[in-house]
């Protein structure tokens, strides 16, 4: 047993992650061709606009379920909404935010763009801390929009006129997954501007602007879109229910800063916070690069139902990075 845990702790988790991401990408993007259907409420971007998708993203399901009159929501449709949320949670609690780090095809594409940038030798970008703090709130605004807008489209609130149906689905119309993921099955049909109304014109143009920013942003900034992703915000709301955990024993931390330097989403708390045990932040995607880069025995721990499955260790650190005089941890 000790041998197995040493083997896992010394493993190159980034390489393991690369293969899992590749496999997930193939299954989610092309799985429909093999009649694979994983579910309608997946806690990751599995876009139904891609005709070969193997499942559906929960956000589209949520928007459809909320697009109902109050009367329906308090009746049968409310039960349907509840069952969709339960279905989402059942998937989510298994992997927690590792859905973002290991499964999300949009995240995988961003990681591939990062690899391309590295190969081209182009410098990466990083936000200043104050900018980061401001930008990370955007995902909650988007989450509120996608929850409230369908209700306002289907109902008149406080006697106000209903929102135009042209906004629907309010997030999918501006989500970069809608045009980007179908590209991998050769479908370019989502790259259009709809001129039929001022709202559709604005929303489709905004959607394409976001796609362009997604491509450029992800190229220069690691996991650029994840900072604005409403799915990430939704995950964080339920993160404490999950069985997969990332924990830190603060007393073992020497604040060397390795974990922060390797973090793709620049979470400073991972290095600074020595008081909290659960260190999963709203932007964390549970890629476990921080555990890999931590040289302190048992400081960072990945556990399932309290059982450690991957633990930081000095041995593992040197096994992966080699003697420090030969190699440095690079954050690019």
């Amino acid at each position: 047993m000790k041998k197995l845990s040493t083997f896992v702790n010394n493993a190159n988790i980034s390489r393991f992650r690369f293969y899992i991401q590749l496999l997930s990408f193939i299954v989610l993007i092309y799985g429909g061709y093999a009649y694979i259907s994983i579910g309608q409420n997946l806690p990751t971007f599995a876009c139904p606009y891609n005709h070969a998708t193997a499942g559906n993203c929960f956000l589209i399901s949520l928007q459809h379920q909320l697009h109902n009159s109050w009367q329906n929501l308090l009746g049968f449709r409310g039960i349907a909404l509840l069952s969709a949320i339960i279905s989402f949670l059942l998937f989510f609690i298994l992997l927690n935010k590792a859905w973002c780090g290991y499964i999300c095809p949009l995240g995988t594409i961003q990681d591939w763009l990062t690899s391309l940038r590295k190969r081209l030798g182009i410098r990466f970008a990083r936000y200043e801390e104050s900018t980061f703090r401001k930008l990370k709130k955007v995902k909650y605004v988007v989450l509120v929009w996608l929850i409230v807008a369908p209700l306002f489209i289907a109902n008149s609130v406080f006697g106000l006129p209903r929102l135009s149906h042209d906004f629907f689905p309010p997030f999918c119309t501006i989500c970069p997954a809608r045009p980007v993921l179908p590209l991998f099955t050769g479908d370019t049909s989502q790259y259009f501007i709809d001129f039929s109304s001022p709202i559709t014109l604005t929303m489709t143009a905004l959607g394409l602007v976001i796609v362009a920013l997604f491509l450029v942003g992800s190229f220069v900034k690691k996991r650029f879109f994840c900072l604005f992703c409403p799915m990430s915000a939704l995950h964080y709301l339920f993160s404490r229910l999950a069985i997969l955990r990332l924990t830190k024993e603060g007393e073992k931390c020497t604040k060397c800063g390795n974990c922060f330097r390797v973090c793709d989403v620049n979470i400073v708390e991972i290095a600074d916070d020595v008081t909290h045990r659960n260190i999963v932040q709203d932007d964390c995607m549970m890629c476990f690069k921080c555990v890999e880069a931590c040289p302190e025995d048992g400081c960072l721990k990945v556990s399932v139902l309290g059982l450690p499955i991957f633990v930081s260790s000095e041995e593992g650190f040197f096994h992966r990075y080699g003697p420090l005089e030969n190699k440095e941890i690079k954050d690019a």
Partner: protein
Amino acid sequence: MKPKIEIGTILTLAIFLIIPSVKATELIWLSNMPPKAVKKEIRFYGMHRLPALRGKDHRIHIIQWIRSGRSPEFSEYVQRTNTGHPELFVFSPSEEPIHAQLLHTKLGYLLSFPDGEEGFYNAYLVEKFVHRDTLTVLVAKAERLSHSCRNGHKGVLKKVPPKIHPQVVPLEIVRKRLPGENFHTIITAGDRVTFQILLHGVPLSGASVRLCTQKGWSKQLTTSQNGEATFQLIQDYLSRWQDVKRRVFYHFLVTVDYLKPEEGTYQGKPYHTVRYLGTYSDIYRPSQLMYSSYVWGLFVILSVILIASLAIYLYRKRSKIEFREIAFDEKA
């Protein structure tokens, strides 16, 4: 002196000779379109906006109006069919026969059947009667897709292909499915739609098939060897991009007329010819190309990519700290 043929005489003859025969065989069809007077009272269900009523059993009942005529726009909403006692057959998406009824309500004369399953419902109204030595067999068919994304998308591939019921319906108009058709597919102007005509389950060649769009455009074709006729639906009105009503469903009506020399008796009345009349109505939408532009989409996305890339390049160039060699004279 040549005898004068007056227009009035011709009209009088026409009224006496033609109108009774038309009245005798009204071309009945099943329509999704409510009369204008009651349109606001109708509730529409699902993605394909099926007119529906809540039954006494609290279930949703799909309703179809009985209409007579050849044009979807101008056909009459009738209160009685040719015989007054037609046979009704409705099959669920899983091909189970379901109970349907004809109702005289304040909304009009309706065919009503309960909805309870996702997929295509096949509804038939069949009438047989002998008139002037001819047995008329009239089959009005409606193929209605009941789908709401909230109910999921299970078994789409199995439920999409058309189903036929030659055991109860002598003449069948089968709409061949579009490539890649699923529950979200809506026929649009510009699509090539193929109809196969089956007589007792066998393809019928040489039958006259006519398609009439809502605005009155019509085209007549004769079925090929395998009983097929293909129409390309046209956008039968022109407008500016902004004026295209992209969410409006337009209706089209397909009619089949086929005469077959055949002797026999029906309800004690002898006949020498059988006239098969079939009707089939469906919905279509304006083509997306009428109100959207891929060129503008490409322009927007490329412009943003260029501008964003240039902005990043200039920002980086501006914030680059020039290398300056500072030499210290240690002796000074």
